[in-house]
């Protein structure tokens, strides 16, 4: 601690390791999944016509978004890397539970109100950054939803993988067809959150990147200390205010 004046330890190495493993595993899973999807780019069964909920039903995803080159190859990747993702997810959630850090992400009573205040601040309807702990309420919601979506993706994936042997999982999603819809839809939701997350890291709190690599964070550079909205007050506050 003495070697890092003014810094606080923010992210345990387990959190950092599982975070970066996700950064590797998720694109592999999404890319290979989209390659598999392209073999039958529709949620309709043969003869059913277009699937109404997908305006692009029947259209393939562009090749550059896919991974694995062909259906068989993508399946090998998907069914291989899935174990990395599942084990990684279990380690992360298990760590949060045992280490008590689930308190940082599990919704609290005033989270909805606090999230609204954050949104107001970002939309210039409020002048001062709301007071926050480790994360603001919008982050808390995002970081809570990510593992929830992950679990939904794994469960609906099992439903598609083993619709007969593990048919009791498949019926949780009505049937095989709707399990595919949930598997794809929850992936899209996770991608949306991940993209927003990455944009916000660079637009609001690039200093947090350090804490996800080394673990150390400088609270004097926090968005609250800088009163930072996306793309504003990115530079550190002047020294006298920090002292």
């Amino acid at each position, binding site marked *: 601690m003495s*070697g*890092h004046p003014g810094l606080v330890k923010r992210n345990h*190495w387990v959190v*950092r*390791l599982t975070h*970066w*493993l996700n*950064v*590797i595993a998720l694109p*592999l899973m999404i890319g290979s999944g989209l390659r*598999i*999807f392209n*073999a*039958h780019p*529709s949620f309709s*069964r*043969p*003869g*059913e016509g277009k699937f109404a909920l997908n305006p692009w039903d029947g259209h393939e995803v562009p090749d550059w978004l896919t*991974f*694995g*080159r*062909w*259906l*068989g*190859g993508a*399946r*090998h*990747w998907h*069914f*291989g*890397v899935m*174990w990395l993702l599942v084990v990684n997810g279990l380690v992360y959630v298990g760590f949060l539970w045992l280490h008590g850090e689930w308190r940082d992400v599990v919704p609290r009573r005033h989270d909805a109100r606090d999230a609204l205040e954050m949104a107001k601040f970002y939309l210039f309807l409020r002048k001062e950054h709301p007071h926050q702990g480790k994360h603001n309420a919008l982050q808390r919601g995002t970081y809570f939803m990510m593992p929830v979506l992950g679990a939904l993706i794994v469960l609906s994936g099992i439903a598609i993988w*083993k*619709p*007969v*042997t*593990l*048919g009791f999982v498949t019926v949780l999603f009505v049937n*095989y*067809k709707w399990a*595919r819809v949930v598997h794809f839809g929850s992936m899209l939701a996770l991608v949306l959150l991940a993209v927003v997350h990455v944009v916000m890291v660079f637009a609001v709190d690039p200093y947090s990147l350090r804490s996800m*690599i*080394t*673990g*150390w964070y400088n609270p004097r550079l926090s968005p609250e200390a800088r009163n930072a909205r996306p793309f504003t007050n990115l530079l550190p506050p002047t020294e006298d205010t920090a002292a």
Partner: protein
Amino acid sequence: MTLDRRRFLTLSAASVSAAMLAACGGDAARLHPLLDLATRKNETLERKLFRSGSRNRPPVDAGVAGESFPSYFVSKHMPVWDPAVRGAWRLEVSGAVRKPLSLSLDDLVRLPRISQKVDHYCVEGWNARAQFSGVRVSDLARLAGATEDAQYVDFQSFDDDYHESWDMASAMHPQTIVVIAKDGHFLNASYGAPARVHSPVKLGYKNTKYLTKVVFMPKRNGGYWSDLGYEWYGGT
């Protein structure tokens, strides 16, 4: 300490992705050893999970795909059995059996038959329903007297060299049948006439059409799509 850890993380992330990307070639025969390992471990797990008691039961009021049920073959032209050229079609049940069988279509029709509305799960991701009627492969195994050596079953066809071998447990599943009729009519040429294998417990490509031989074996012998790089087990 911190720097070391940072460097370690960056390096390990880079080397893992590099190792994996090195295997991203389309050539299935050169699968990355890690993926190969995962495929083998997955098969072990899938065979442990398999239950002969599990059933595929689409809702009673669910319709069948009918003419929309997709079909394909691997020969240049649609395989049609021509008795003038090949003699009468017969289904041979042989290999690790005490009493090999050679069954005509009439013989098959006279055997105990079941009719089931089931899903067909294609490796591409779609499923389609059909009412399939035929003889359980487990009944054929019993009639032929499959021996202890019968650990795998190869389903062979006259669609060029198309065949797929199965594990015994999946072949003996009560919903695995040698189909002679679909949706109340004898199979037509596009659906694999005169007989095909069908089971909801295997992906579509394992279900050999244009069936000629059911061979019980001590060892597996791959299959048409399995040899092209799709996983051999192909279980649902």
